[in-house]
């Protein structure tokens, strides 16, 4: 996982629970905590941090990951506004994740392992994203979609079927505008 993700997690914890809490969390897993955006860190380190936050704050892991995704979207927007502003609506932005956003991510962060979001338009107001990643972070994707919807001030419904956590080879995330 690239350091930028760790930095955004640190921002979320600092903003919502305070700097002291972040320091405590880091010390629990004996992490140095000095994350650099372009450096690649072990995925396990992020999962360990999430596990500690979940326990200390009594937030179920799945809910915490979703909240992290929601927090991550505006953090991305702050760093890369031109990528987000290239699309005026939620669904075209989601459809451009693989073809535009991940291409840009790989230019900036060579070696980044990005998930696959294969898009399939069901109608003008319904987009199916087929999520594939060995990290199985589909709840993070759900949170990012929620964060993006808030950014565009859009309401939507999400159907999540099938799911990697139930043995499927991908997660189907059907986003339908209300």
């Amino acid at each position, binding site marked *: 996982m690239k350091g*930028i993700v760790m930095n955004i997690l640190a921002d979320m914890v600092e903003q919502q629970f305070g*700097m002291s809490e972040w320091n405590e969390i880091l010390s629990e897993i004996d992490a140095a905590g000095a994350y650099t*955006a*372009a450096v690649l860190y072990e995925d396990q380190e992020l999962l360990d941090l999430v596990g500690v936050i979940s326990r200390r704050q009594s937030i179920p892991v799945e809910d915490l990951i979703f909240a992290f995704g929601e927090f991550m979207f505006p953090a991305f927007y702050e*760093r890369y506004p031109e990528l987000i502003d290239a699309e005026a609506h939620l669904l075209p932005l989601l459809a451009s994740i693989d073809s535009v956003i991940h291409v840009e991510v790989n*230019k*900036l*962060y*060579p070696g980044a392992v990005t998930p696959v979001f294969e898009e399939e338009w069901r109608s003008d107001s319904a987009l199916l994203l087929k999520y594939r990643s060995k990290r199985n972070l589909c709840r993070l994707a759900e949170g990012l979609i929620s964060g993006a919807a808030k950014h565009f001030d859009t309401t939507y419904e999400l159907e999540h079927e099938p799911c990697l956590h139930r043995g499927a080879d991908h997660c189907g995330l059907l986003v339908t505008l209300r």
Partner: protein
Amino acid sequence: MTDSDYLIAYKREKAARLTSEKLLEAVTREVYFKNAELERVNQELREQQQALIQQEKMASVGSLASGIAHEINNPLGYSLSNLSVLSEYIHELVTAIQTVRDDSSVTDAAKAPLNSDAVIEVLEDMPDLVVESLDGLQAVKQIVTDLRGFARTNTAELTDTNVNDCLTTTMNVLASELKRKVVLHDDLQSTLIIEANSGKLNQVFANLILNAVHISPSQGNLYITTRDDSNQVVIDISDDGAGVPEEIKAEIFTPFFTTKPVGEGTGLGLSIAYAIIVDDHQGALELVDDGPGSGATFRIRLNAI
């Protein structure tokens, strides 16, 4: 210093880090594009270098071939001519000897030297020896003709040409060979007219077709197609043989390179075809779409008028 002071300093440092990261990203993006550009230019240079090497090989072997062809041609000419005359002389000589041997008025004692085992063997072998020698010299003559073709000493004028007509002519000439060894699938869709030397184009087509036939399995498929692509005529000649092995791809247009057994190929066919298409007609000849098991496709591109 109070906690508040530390917090302010922390936020200041954090803002500085974000700015540094953005700067780093801008530079990374720039490096990415420059690197992509460098890779593209490098690839172009490598291709140009290969083309230059190929051109240079053609030019040097071309002048060498021209010289060899010239030097061989004269002695070859009178050797062939003399041997043809000698063949007739031998026929007359054998007939005369046979007449004497059959003549009942000549005594057996007088005929004895003509009936010795050694003389009988010589008389039997001589015609075959001459015929084999003539065949050998004819083969040498063919090689010299190929060498001259490669050196392109006899360039002819280019005229308005329909490649479909050329291919049809070539396929007609090779009809019996094709029928015997492969299943031919031709689809000649090109409509454009080009400026070409049709004789030389026929030579190229014949060479590529015979190569494909040679490499094809028994009753394999041979595909010959033409089509228009913008202002170019594209000719594809494909087989479903074993394809061109990776290790010889770089050599196939090199003069004297051949995979055929010694005596069965001069290794000049493809290099001559290359020179005719690229140098004489400013076209392109390349091996495309090949791979073990899927056969080879030779593609020719020629500019329309």
